[in-house]
């Protein structure tokens, strides 16, 4: 049977009621969100269901929205059903004061390093992750660089003149 975006939306609302919201289809990919406590339940449902079969985690990343109080950090999962070639995007939002999200490592081994990278860049604390430490930056770093408030350049460098780059 044809798995269309409407069908996925219908199955999700049947199972989770009004907890899954924000259904959109930017450029053809169904995107929805759920409360952060339910992220594993939604992922498990999409994995186990015999028709939906979203068994491949394509990508896991985070986005920092500084303008949305209470929902600053979004963790975005891209899932792929390889047999029917359907993709879906699933987001959970967490406040920046308590960025705890359950870890998907038990379900997808691919999530292991992707979650470490997300922690390294944004500070999202994945509860239940076997080894949540920094992966790409130096271990001694004490801030989360990809958040919007931090600059790109190393502020302690002396050989480059910011004036010349138009950002003095």
């Amino acid at each position: 049977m044809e798995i269309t975006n409407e069908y996925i939306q219908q199955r999700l609302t049947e199972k989770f009621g009004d907890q899954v919201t924000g259904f959109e289809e930017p450029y053809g990919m169904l995107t929805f969100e759920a409360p952060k406590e339910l992220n594993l339940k939604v992922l498990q449902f999409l994995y186990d269901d015999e028709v939906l079969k979203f068994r491949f985690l394509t990508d896991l990343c985070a986005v920092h929205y500084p303008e949305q109080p209470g929902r600053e950090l979004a963790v975005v999962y891209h899932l792929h059903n390889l047999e029917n070639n359907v993709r879906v995007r699933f987001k959970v939002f967490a406040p920046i004061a308590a960025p705890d999200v359950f870890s998907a490592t038990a379900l997808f081994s691919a999530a292991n390093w992707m979650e470490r990278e997300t922690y390294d860049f944004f500070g999202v604390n994945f509860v239940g992750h076997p080894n949540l430490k920094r992966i790409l930056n130096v271990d001694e770093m004490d801030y989360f660089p990809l958040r919007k408030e931090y600059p790109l350049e190393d502020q302690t460098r002396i050989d480059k003149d910011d004036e010349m780059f138009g950002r003095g």
Partner: protein
Amino acid sequence: MARPVRFNIKGDVKLVTEGPEGYAGEGFFATTLDKLVGMGRKNSMWPLPFATSCCGIEFMATMASHYDFARFGSERVGFSPRQCDILMVMGTIAKKMGPVVKEVYLQMAEPRWVMAVGACASSGGIFDTYSVLQGIDQIIPVDVYVPGCPPRPEAIIDGFMKVQELVGKESLRRRNSDRYKELMNSYGIQ
């Protein structure tokens, strides 16, 4: 050491390789020690290719048969710092990698030279970010910088030839001189 152009020349071509100046006679050649040592050293430099990123692939192309790095005496590239003369740092050095570069440099035995290949090793390149070291000369003294992103193999060879010039003309007492000691102290190297 400029060699005259060999191709597109009509008539006879004499390939002139400049040897050191000295007094030649029947079966002997007398010159000063440092010229001889310089000539020996420069034509048999063993590089340590510290290849981190894209410039490393251009180095692989330089070592391959098309551009043939081996004709400059670097037939054997080594990865053991003790056995190598020149540290060629090719590619971006992140702040995480900085201590590793310094360790490798410290383990090399004198006389040692350093060549920074590529824009990233020379000054950070296009990556003016929080995690990239803006040039390896922040941590180790560099002899020759080769700009480019990545530099063409001919540019890497040109840089190498400049190092060869430096090696050939170096005084045998340089490594013990005060100025050299000052340079090492400014980097915190004993």
